[in-house]
């Protein structure tokens, strides 16, 4: 005879952790220990050399804004690089994103396009900038090209994910009227994904302004060039002025762009 289950049968201790759970923590711990030496972690140096660092940090103050006009002009160039890098990327990412969406394009198109986009995304803008400097020479255009290729890879993936998440019913509604695939996309798909696409594009523009200031450091124009020269010349007062200008501009653009993104959705 079996008794009725009662409250006393329910244990107050949680059930024991599974073996896989223990194993996962063990693997994580081993990974951290293994990478400690590889990453040459020397936390003690932070204490030992703290006096040097205070001297070094003091060099940054007060910031030297003597050439602020130049900095602002170069910051504008940086933003121009980001604008064109992003716009060209959006133009390319729309068709490439659609071609890498499984619910739009056939598999034999999706896979190669996705792999190509992976490649664009895997390589950092800095690397592309160095390559394009060789190809098109020093200057902002190399920066635009670098951002363009990398951002196309990123946006195509994001655009495709948005397309794969659409509601298929409106598309079927459009299809029912006997239109072509392209019109199904224009009338059924794009209106659904447009707010997300705008949001992603603005977000990439924000991060491209940040990236554009870095690609300048390898010679691809903009404020990065000035920053690089200031650091190389040990002119830390100037460096801190440039950094402050970058921080203010990037923050402003982030704020404005996130406001616009909220409006788009």
């Amino acid at each position, binding site marked *: 005879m079996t008794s009725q289950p009662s409250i006393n049968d329910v244990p107050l201790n949680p059930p024991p952790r599974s073996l896989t759970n223990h194993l996962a923590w063990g693997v994580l711990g081993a990974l951290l220990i293994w990478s400690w030496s590889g990453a040459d972690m020397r936390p003690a140096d932070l204490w030992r050399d703290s006096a040097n660092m205070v001297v070094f940090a003091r060099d940054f103050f007060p910031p030297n804004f003597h050439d602020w006009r130049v900095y602002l002009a170069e910051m504008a160039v940086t933003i121009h690089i980001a604008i064109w890098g992003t716009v060209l990327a959006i133009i390319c990412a729309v068709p490439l994103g659609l071609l890498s969406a499984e619910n739009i394009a056939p598999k034999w198109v999706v896979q190669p396009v996705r792999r190509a986009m992976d490649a664009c995304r895997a390589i950092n803008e800095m690397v592309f900038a160095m390559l394009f400097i060789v190809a098109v020479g020093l200057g902002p255009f190399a920066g635009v090209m670098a951002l363009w290729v990398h951002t196309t890879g990123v946006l195509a993936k994001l655009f495709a994910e948005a397309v794969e998440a659409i509601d298929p019913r409106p598309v079927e*509604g459009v299809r*029912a009227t006997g239109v072509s695939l392209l019109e199904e996309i224009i009338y059924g798909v794009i209106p659904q994904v447009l707010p997300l696409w705008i949001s992603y594009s603005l977000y990439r523009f924000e991060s491209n302004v940040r990236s554009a200031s870095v690609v300048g450091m390898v010679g691809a124009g903009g404020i990065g060039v000035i920053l690089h020269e200031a650091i190389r010349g040990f002119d830390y007062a100037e460096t801190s002025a440039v950094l402050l200008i970058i921080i203010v501009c990037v923050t402003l653009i982030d704020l404005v762009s996130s406001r616009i993104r909220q409006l788009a959705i």
Partner: protein
Amino acid sequence: MVALLGASGSGKSTLLRLLPGFMAADEGTVKVLGRTVQENGRLVGNARVVRRELGFVFQQFNLVSRLPVIINVLVGLLHRAAWWRRMLMLFTVGERQLALEAMASVGIEQTAWQRAGTLSGGQQQRAALARCLVQKARIILADEPIASLDPESSRKVMEVLTHLNRARGCTVLVSLHQVDFAIRYCPRTIALNAGRVVYDGPSSALTPALLAQLYGANASQLVENSPAVPPLMRDGAIPSGLVLA
């Protein structure tokens, strides 16, 4: 105007979705208006040419909710517009006039520039019917068009379908859950059970006894909440142009 009757899972939607080729059949040929849509599970190349003749009305309306209602309606005449205007979503004044008239005939012209998603279910379904109107569809296939609507909206939608059938000469094949709507609006009923046609004849002959005989235990699902409604219409036009082989 023909009602397609059957319990859930009896094959109503499957039958309707085979006709424009939204689904591929396992075997056999589907012909609409004398033209092949699909053959042995393969859609023929010009299936979309046939689709232009078919208006399809969905249970969930299937409008693009972020586009204005009038653009949703104008999608119905895309196949007659110049290609470069189609690509840019540009429509001529004449086309917009046509769409607005179609919307007026179903009573939703005031909502023209609202986003379709802001309309009530009944209004959205009438917008879908307006799209069939501008499409100049010869056959309208309605897949449970009133299943998600309140009784008043259901009545309006059924009346628009009746109008399309009588005034515009469209063949209307409408799948329904409720027998009373079939009796009231459709002279002829085709009843399905488990994928087979079990009845094809005048709707007026559909008595609870016959339904019980056709559906057994499923019958209650069809006649629930259905007071005996006298049929408004007697046997009228037999649909032509639909061939299932």
